[in-house]
């Protein structure tokens, strides 16, 4: 693994020493409007979130399921854009590392280096572009290295161990393991496929591995933490809870509790 030293790497190391998996909480900025989303993020932090992952909405999110698609669409309709999202991160002034999840065209359009540098100035520690594989990422990696922003890349259950190793070489933050075949959204169970994938990936690389897509329950988080995941990523469940007016903080707290390995 290539290493950079920033708040994200420090956080992951700290949790590892404490034998905890990280709770990575995702929420799309601007949903349903910017102020409410900042409020939700604050609740996620109060609930014990270790890494806050914020979405910058894109009009055509091909890796996202209906919940996040609809949220992105609403955020865009209410005027969300990267500039306002950076402003929101600055305002939030989080005590934990903040990472961005978005799609590559938003970086490309703003100028990749400009995007990374603006993100950094706002307090962002890591960036993931969901449709950017390592083959297309050289400009992105250069900008991230220059501004001390960690890179996060996705791996999937069908990514060969050989390719996992290759992707790990480009990853200075963590590997984002897609838990199952499909888009983002809640699922009932953590499949055996996911547990096997975690074990296989952990064997292939020392780079931290966080698991996302379909993780919504304490039981999911516990199983993944036990299987060796360095973090669990929860997103759609928070969007749903916020739509339903349920306590975000309580949900985060429950999930965080489940990441404490025995």
């Amino acid at each position, binding site marked *: 693994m290539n290493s950079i030293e920033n708040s994200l790497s420090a956080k992951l190391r700290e949790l590892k020493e404490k034998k905890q998996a990280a709770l990575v909480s995702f929420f799309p900025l601007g949903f349903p409007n910017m102020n409410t989303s900042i409020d939700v993020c604050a609740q996620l932090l109060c609930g014990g979130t270790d890494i806050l992952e914020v979405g910058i909405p*894109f*009009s*055509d*999110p*091909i*890796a996202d*399921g*209906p919940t996040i*698609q*609809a949220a992105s*669409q609403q955020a*865009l309709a209410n005027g969300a*854009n*990267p*500039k306002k999202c950076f402003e929101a991160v600055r305002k939030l002034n989080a005590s934990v590392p903040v990472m961005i999840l978005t*799609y*590559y*065209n*938003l970086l*490309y*359009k*703003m100028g990749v280096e400009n995007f990374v540098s603006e993100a950094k100035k706002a307090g962002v520690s890591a960036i993931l572009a*969901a*449709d*950017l*594989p390592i*083959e*297309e990422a050289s400009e992105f990696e250069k900008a991230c290295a220059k501004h001390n922003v960690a890179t996060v*890349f*996705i*791996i*999937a*259950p*069908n*990514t*060969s161990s050989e*390719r996992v190793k290759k*992707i790990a070489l480009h990853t200075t933050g963590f590997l984002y393991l*897609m838990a199952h*075949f*499909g*888009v983002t959204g809640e699922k009932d169970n953590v499949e055996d496929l996911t547990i096997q994938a975690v074990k296989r990936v952990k064997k292939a690389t020392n780079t931290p591995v966080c698991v996302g897509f379909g993780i919504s329950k304490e039981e999911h988080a516990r199983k993944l933490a036990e299987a060796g995941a360095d973090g669990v990523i929860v997103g759609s469940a928070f969007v749903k809870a916020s739509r339903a007016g349920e306590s975000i903080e309580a949900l985060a707290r429950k999930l965080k509790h489940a990441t404490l390995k025995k």
Partner: protein
Amino acid sequence: MFYDYPDKNGKFGVFGGKFVPEVITPLLEELEQAYNNAKKDEQFQLQLNDLLKHFAGRPTPIYFAENLSKRVGGARIFLKREDLAHLGAHKINNALGQALLAKFMGKKRVIAETGAGQHGVATASACAKLGLKCRVYMGSVDVERQALNVFRMKLMGAEVTPVESGSKTLKDAINEAFRDWIANVHDTHYLIGSVVGPHPYPLIVRDFQSIIGKEAKKQASDTIGKLPDCIVACVGGGSNAAGIFSEFVSDEKVKLIGVEAGGKSKKSGEHAASICLGTKGVLHGSLGFVLQDEFGQIIETHSVSAGLDYPGVGPEHCLLHELKRAEYVSATDEEALEAFKTLSECEGIMPALESAHALAHAVKLAKKMKKEESILVCLSGRGDKDVEIIKKNTSLL
């Protein structure tokens, strides 16, 4: 000129590439491998040629539009009659090629996106013929304006899934097809209908459509007497244009012109002219000209023809534009409707509204050219599917 694209990374100059979620990467590699094998596989080639000849009815003729040429005055206008191919459009060429490829890959299920419905219909037909399960994603706006094609797909056994997200048109149908593919990586082939998407799609679709250009080149001496001075084709994603251009790129005397959808006006949101009015961006897996706002959000487009109503364009067209090997212009809704009417009246041929864009530009061009000169228009499809729209827009005529 030396022209050999895409390169091994799937790039057409700076354009193209594979901007996809990681889960799709192994699928693209598998597809590229299978395609390279199929190219050398005699069985595959024999079967495909047989299907193209006996099932799709190829070759399609080049037709001299004598009445139209006389009326316009100027260059002689010829039509490459893709409207006479099975199901009434060039889409069958690619659908058969890829469906056969899916079969050779051992896939059981095919998914596709469609705008005007022509690609959906072609895919449904190819899947029926080859015994593959077929699901077609179609924006709900298009489902409504191309109802006849929805019915045709269903008749041939395809499942049609209306897409309600985003602008509810072609781009959203593509998003949804990608999502399906991500969830069904093991048994499904995504049969993309145009020269768009991540590598190797722009290459594969162009190659399967290059039969249009290969035939045209062979037929030119008998019909036109020489190579045409100019080839005109409509460009949404750009598959019929890529197919006919591909054989003539190295014939530098042949002028290549792609015609985009000018819609109602040049105002943002009122057209679909990605090369003429767009900027560089990444959409649906490749880098090219896209219609987007200052932050990179994709803008909704408008065209009277559903098949051109797309905010991106194939990466190869972006390169041909940048190399100035092809020229890209636009025709408005009104000009396309007028061309539809003109061709119907004077030749008894109803063109698809997509093809009518190419025709509209050809007519303009012919007026400025000499009688000895010739224009070959790729008449990519027939207009039966569009008569409802024509009826609604008669006030424009």
